[in-house]
Each structure stands twice: as structure tokens, then as C-alpha cells.
């Protein structure tokens, strides 16, 4: 981690005029103001969630907790919440384990390994919405190569509830596993050799090395991966929008998709914001928890 050199300059002159303690605030003001400018409507929106605001009329009245009461008794909301969490859990579990396997594989010094490492960057550069579109053509029922190779004929991946769920998670895994693999690979490469050599000399079992040495030492890297992946996978929108659009019925509808439909198809902004707030609470809680754990894990190194 970066050192803090300023605290060690007691004898020399500090690099910047120290006289002003408002200087940092002036320098950070433009960025802070921009962020506040983007975020302050959010505060107003909390109020809208207690109204029946519709974006077509823009007139509204206070309705108290009605949006929340309706939301909690709405099976579609619970289905979308369930999908959001289930997709996130499945995608994360596979991305972490597959990413770790790929990292272990590419940690070897064999010919061509640097090419494969570079290839890992490609899915990360494909916009998620385009990943969705690419896989939609791959999985097309007649003209797609996947059905052809698997001999599935005209099987329609996006019409069957379970295959639709599977495909959405699969595409998310395709586009994000390389990120996990690359971060864990940097982690593996930063590990010292000695403990592993010593363990091997002692005849330690592979699982022992993995559980007692490798995973604990990789912890800061795993936390970084979790932090960046959890928050992204919980707001899964682009891939679903490009492939199933949330269907068939509601089986692949996540909270962002549900909210999109509610605002831009039924125009109910007030009740949509109530749902969005639920998503925000989960997202904020998880990211705050993971980020502070990550800060702690790097601080102790």
C-alpha cells in the first residue's frame, strides 16, 4: 500500500503551503459538488416514494406508506427480489470458483500463458448489453451454433423458465469471470514462495495448502473481488434487458428490470422509487460492509 510520506516531513518544509486548512476543501470542492449534484435528487426521491407521483402528469399527492404496503404485498416484487438475490448468489459462486481455477491454471509458467492472460481482458471490454446480444445470437433456436453443436434443434432457451434463468446467469458469468480470474491471478503472483515450498517439503496435502495457506493469504484480493462483483451483480440489468427482457412472465425479472417497467411502461414513479430504495439499502449495506473489511485487511498488511 501507498505510504504516507507527509507525516515524515517534520524536519523539512512541507511541499505545499500549510497555512490554509481550507485549501483541501477548495481543491476537492468541484468533485464533491458534482457528486452532490447527481445525488441530491435522490433525497427528493425518498419523498416521492410516499406519493403517487406519475411521470406523465407530474402532479402528485401524499399517500403515506401506501407504496410500501402495496410493495410488500405484491408477489411480483418478491419474485423480483428473489431473482435478484438468487442470480447474484449463483453468479458469484460460479465466478469465484471458476475464476480461482482459471487463476491457478494461468499462474504456471508455460508457453502461451501470457496470450491467454491477455485474452481474459476481452470479455471485460465488451459492454454487458452487447454480451447479452452476442449470446442471444449464439443461442438462437435455429440459426445459433450452440443448439447446432449440442443437437438441440430448435430448442428455445429464452422461453423455458429454467433455461432462461440459467442463460441470464451464464452470460453474467461469461462477462465477469475474467475479472475475478485476473485479480486472483495478481494475488497468486504476489504470494511469497517460501511458505508453499516449506509446506511441500513437509509433504502437506494440496487441500491443506489451499485452506491454510493460499486462501488466507489471498483474503485481501478475495475481498476486492467480492466488493466489486457483489454490487454489480445485484444491479443486474443490461444483460437481462438485452436477452429476456425479464420474461417469460416474471422469471428473470430483477428489481432494476421491474422498476424500469414500472416507470417507463406504467409511469408509476412513486412506487418504483420505493422498490429502488430497497435495492439501494441492500447494495449500500453490502458494499459498506465489504469495503470496510477490505480497508481493514489492507491496513494490517
Amino acid at each position, binding site marked *: 500500500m501507498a505510504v504516507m*510520506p507527509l507525516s515524515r516531513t517534520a524536519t523539512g*518544509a512541507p*511541499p*505545499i503551503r500549510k497555512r490554509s486548512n481550507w*485549501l*483541501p*476543501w*477548495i*481543491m*476537492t470542492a468541484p*468533485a*464533491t459538488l*458534482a*457528486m452532490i449534484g447527481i445525488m441530491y435528487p435522490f433525497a*427528493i426521491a425518498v419523498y416521492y416514494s410516499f406519493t403517487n*407521483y406519475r411521470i406523465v402528469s407530474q402532479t402528485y399527492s401524499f399517500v403515506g406508506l401506501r407504496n410500501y404496503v402495496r410493495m410488500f404485498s405484491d408477489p411480483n416484487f418478491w419474485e423480483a427480489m428473489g431473482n435478484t438475490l438468487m442470480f447474484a448468489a449463483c453468479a458469484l459462486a460460479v465466478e469465484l470458483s471458476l475464476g480461482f481455477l482459471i487463476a491457478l*491454471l*494461468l499462474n*504456471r509458467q*508455460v508457453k502461451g*500463458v501470457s496470450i*491467454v492472460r*491477455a485474452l481474459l*481482458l476481452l*470479455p*471485460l*471490454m*465488451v459492454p*454487458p*448489453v*452487447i*454480451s447479452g*446480444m452476442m449470446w*442471444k*445470437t*449464439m443461442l438462437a433456436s*435455429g*440459426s445459433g451454433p450452440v443448439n*447446432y453443436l449440442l443437437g438441440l434443434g430448435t430448442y428455445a432457451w429464452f422461453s423455458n423458465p429454467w433455461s432462461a434463468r440459467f442463460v441470464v446467469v451464464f452470460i453474467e458469468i461469461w462477462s465477469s469471470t475474467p475479472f475475478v480470474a*485476473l485479480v486472483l491471478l*495478481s494475488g497468486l503472483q504476489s504470494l511469497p*514462495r517460501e511458505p508453499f515450498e516449506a509446506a511441500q517439503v513437509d509433504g502437506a496435502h494440496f487441500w491443506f495448502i489451499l485452506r491454510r495457506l493460499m486462501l488466507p493469504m489471498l483474503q*485481501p484480493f478475495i475481498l*476486492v473481488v467480492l466488493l*466489486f462483483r457483489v454490487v454489480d451483480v445485484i444491479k443486474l*440489468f*443490461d444483460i437481462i*434487458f438485452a436477452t429476456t427482457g425479464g420474461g417469460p412472465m416474471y422469471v428473470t425479472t430483477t*428489481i*432494476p428490470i421491474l*422498476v*424500469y417497467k414500472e416507470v417507463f411502461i406504467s409511469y408509476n*414513479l412513486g412506487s418504483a422509487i420505493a422498490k*429502488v430504495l430497497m*435495492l*439501494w439499502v441492500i*447494495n*449500500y449495506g453490502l458494499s*459498506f460492509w465489504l*469495503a470496510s473489511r477490505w480497508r481493514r485487511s489492507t491496513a494490517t498488511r
Partner: protein
Amino acid sequence: MKERQGNSFFVYLGMLMVTLYILAPIVWIVMMSFKSRIDVVSVPPKIIFTPTLDNYLALFGLGKVGLLSGTAFLSYFKNSLILSLGSVSLSLLLGMPAAYAIARLRFAARDSLAFTYLTFRFVPEVTIILPLYVVYQKLHLYNTYLGLILVYQLISLPLLIWMMRSYFEEIPVAIEQAARTDGYSWFRSFFKLVLPLAAPGIAATLVLAFIFCWNNFSFGLMLGGHSTQPVTVGLLSFMGTNEVQWGLMAAATVIAIVPEMVLALAVQRYMIRGLTFGAVK
């Protein structure tokens, strides 16, 4: 760790599988972009076909695929360029002083402030979009480049602040002190010494921020209209329900993602650091 050489067959098999897994859809979309209108929908799919440039020509208004011309794509492409370049430039302006202050100045809220900038990276887009939708309608920022560039700050600004901060921190304070002792003004020492030293990292970060902005979909979808929407939104209109248009869509996709991939390979060395906001170097 000790390298085991014995099972290199399985290592290569694994590497081959990873390669196929990553490349399959990309290769497929590239192939599709060179297919004629009939080959695109052929059942079973054609692996061997006579390549044609029809789709690309149609995109640039030099021909048609059936009754379709893809020239709308060019304006989406232009929008993406304006939005991404505009957002990255604005973030650089707003973020550089903030990054320097966090890297070099001592003040009580320094860590909390940096952390607060980071949390903006984690906000779900819809939570921002819906409130902004109302405000943008009132301020006439809806469907404007300016409005979109402002909300794109959520993508590029936290990244730039965190990365520039980490590159500034790597430059020894002694260099600046020496320059100041020699009578350099602060501005001169910053622009003549600090900035050039941090430049490669910052340039790579700008590229990455550009890519992130380019890849965004939801802001343009919900806060932009036809005249300002980026290529990610525009491409979906080629998708439609009609498979015949997929050739055009594929060609447009290739044009939209290939420059990014080239850029990404060029800054490969800085990539992981950027993707993790400096957490992994």
C-alpha cells in the same frame, strides 16, 4: 509456488478451454458481421460461407441490406464518442485537484472523503436515474449531451480520483520539496515534475474511464433520447425480433467493441490496477 511440469498436457487443455470459452461468442459475432442476409438466418448455422461486406457498407450509408440501411448507427457512434470523451475530460478537470489534495495534503476528513467518492462507484444506476429523470425534465437536461455527461461522472469521476491519487502518492514528496527549495512555484513543480511522472498511469486510467463510459447502457436508455443515445442503446434497435437484421447488428457490434479491445490491450499493464481502483497493483 513450485511449478509442476508433469501435467502440462492438462494445463494446455485447460488453457484451450478458457480460450474457446472467451473467444466463441466474439468470433461468432465477427463471422456473422460478414454474412449475407440469407446466411445469417440459415438453419443449420453456416460455419463456411462467402464473406460479404454488405453489412459494413450499409452501416456507412454505402448500401443496403434488404430494405435496411444502417446509417442511424453512425449517429449513435458519434453520440458515444461525444459522451465518453466529454465525460472523461470533465472528470479529469474535476478530479485532478481532488486527487492531488487527497494524495498530498493533510486534512481531517481526507480518508472519509476518498471513501465517499469510492462509494459512488457502488450505487445502482436505477437509484440515480429515476430521481434524475424528474429533475432533468424540469431543467431541460433530459436528452441532452450535457445531462448525460453529468450523470456519467458517476462512472468516470470516482475512478479517476482514486487512480490519480494512487499515482500521485507514488511520486516521492522529496522531488516536490527539492523543486520548491529551488524556487519553483507550486504550479511549476506540479506541471513540470509531478504531472509528467504520473502521466503514463493517468493516460491509462483515462483510457479505462473512456471504456467504462462507452460500455454504459442504462443512463442513455433512460435519460437520453434518439438524438443523444449511445451506441449500446442504438444497437438494441438492430436486434429487434427480426433475425434478418442480425448481420447489421453484428457489424455494428464489431465496430463498437474492436477499438475498445485494441485500447485495452495497449494499456494492459495498468488494467487490473484500474479495474480495482488501485486496490490490486
